[in-house]
């Protein structure tokens, strides 16, 4: 057993393959977002080295999930209601290197702020022509692009007169188990962001990383407004050689 514990200590000093969380990541407990109070651990996390389990990750996305669904406005018989938008950007690592051929899954409310979900019961219309689910794969330079409609804001029960800012949910796995990320993209100049407890679980200025930018070059004439949103995943760290 002495050999084993000595070995474990040695492993803990091995450099990580992927960087750890930075100061802009939220804590699990953020009491202003009431649901976190009973759903966040009270014991400290146990820090472990990044083994093969953490530094590998799933591939074969199309085998698992099916092909891309990059246009959310053409999934039903007619065009959905609302402001048509293009969202595009790049998936990068912390050195600014692209993350190619990785899946980006998205889901969102419709233009009225209503989700096509049995448990979303607030009084805004459903749109039979809009589901709000999509999936894109980044290209060789880490770029992605999808077409949708701008989601509406909606009320929720967290506190009196609580409204979520308009947002699109994004889910990424990246190259490894360690790089898993689920985030939300917000829209510029939305007054609800600064009074939203979910967005505000992220400290400033890092909260602003989640606010997309309107871009006239991405906007298509007579068709759709364009927004830019880059997603930065953990890692990669410099190689051990570079660190020396």
């Amino acid at each position, binding site marked *: 057993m002495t050999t084993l514990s000595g*070995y*474990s200590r040695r492993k*803990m000093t091995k450099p990580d393959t992927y*960087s750890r*969380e*930075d100061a802009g*990541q*939220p*804590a*699990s407990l953020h009491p202003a*977002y*009431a*649901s*976190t*109070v*009973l*759903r*966040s651990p*009270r*014991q400290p*996390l146990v*820090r*472990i080295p990044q*083994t*093969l*389990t*953490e530094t*590998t*990750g799933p*591939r*074969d996305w199309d085998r*698992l*999930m*099916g092909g891309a669904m990059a246009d959310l406005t053409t999934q039903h018989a007619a065009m959905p209601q609302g402001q048509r938008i293009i969202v595009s*950007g790049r998936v990068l690592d*912390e050195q600014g290197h692209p993350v190619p051929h990785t899946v980006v899954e*998205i*889901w969102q409310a419709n233009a009225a702020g209503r*989700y*096509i*979900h049995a448990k979303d019961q607030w009084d805004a219309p459903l749109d039979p022509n809009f*589901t709000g*689910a999509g999936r894109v794969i980044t290209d060789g330079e880490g770029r992605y692009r999808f077409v949708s409609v701008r989601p509406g804001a909606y009320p929720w029960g967290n506190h009196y007169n609580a409204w979520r800012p308009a947002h699109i*949910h994004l*889910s990424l796995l990246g190259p490894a*188990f360690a790089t*898993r*990320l*689920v985030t*939300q993209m917000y829209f510029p100049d939305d007054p609800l962001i600064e009074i939203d407890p979910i967005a505000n679980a992220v400290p400033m*200025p*890092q909260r*602003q*990383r*989640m*606010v997309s*930018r309107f871009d006239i070059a991405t906007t298509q004439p007579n068709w759709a407004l364009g927004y830019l*949103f880059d997603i*930065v995943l*953990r890692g990669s760290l410099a190689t051990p050689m570079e660190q020396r």
Partner: protein
Amino acid sequence: MADNQSSELFGQTPSQTVGPFFHYGLPWKGGADLVGATDIGARPDLMPEDHYLLAQPHATVTEPVETITIEGVVVDGQGVPTPDVMVEIWQADPTGRYAGESNSGFIGFGRSSTSEAGVYRFVTVKPGAVMDSDGMIQAPHIAFSILGRGMLKRLVTRLYFDGDVANESDPILGLVPHARRDTLIAKARDGVWRFDIVLQGDRETVFFDI
């Protein structure tokens, strides 16, 4: 004001909750069956039929394999089951190799939404012991991510198999305080590997900083 495109803000995109309405966007039919024999994992009951756009089940392993079932309830700090949580797993194949290291065709990734009773379930194969490039051996284990409403970032844990002698020398279990190790050990009961996840409180599951 600075935004996503501001170079002075460049860095990790912050994590946010999946919220309560992820079911039509993430967990596809068959996502919780890593050998492709059933359509478990999704909750198509939570959306109109013509708004289910996610993948349909298909076989991912062509040869007959011995499967195992893993099942558990996810509970909050008051012991209440959580009906709006998603569990993901990542594991090696029976020879201890991750996808990309072998040609077995086994992808090793699965996704299960919890039921109204807070229960998740996977059908998969038992992973083998894993050897790292430096020779470190890990006992058979499955990496778990827990995401859900009220969870601003995923929680990471691991499942180990009760009775496996390799658990005694596993370098990661060895980092867990002895009194809490049991929260990471699935127990065989009625042919199912039972692995409950306690988000908070007595017998709180050990979660890892990776």
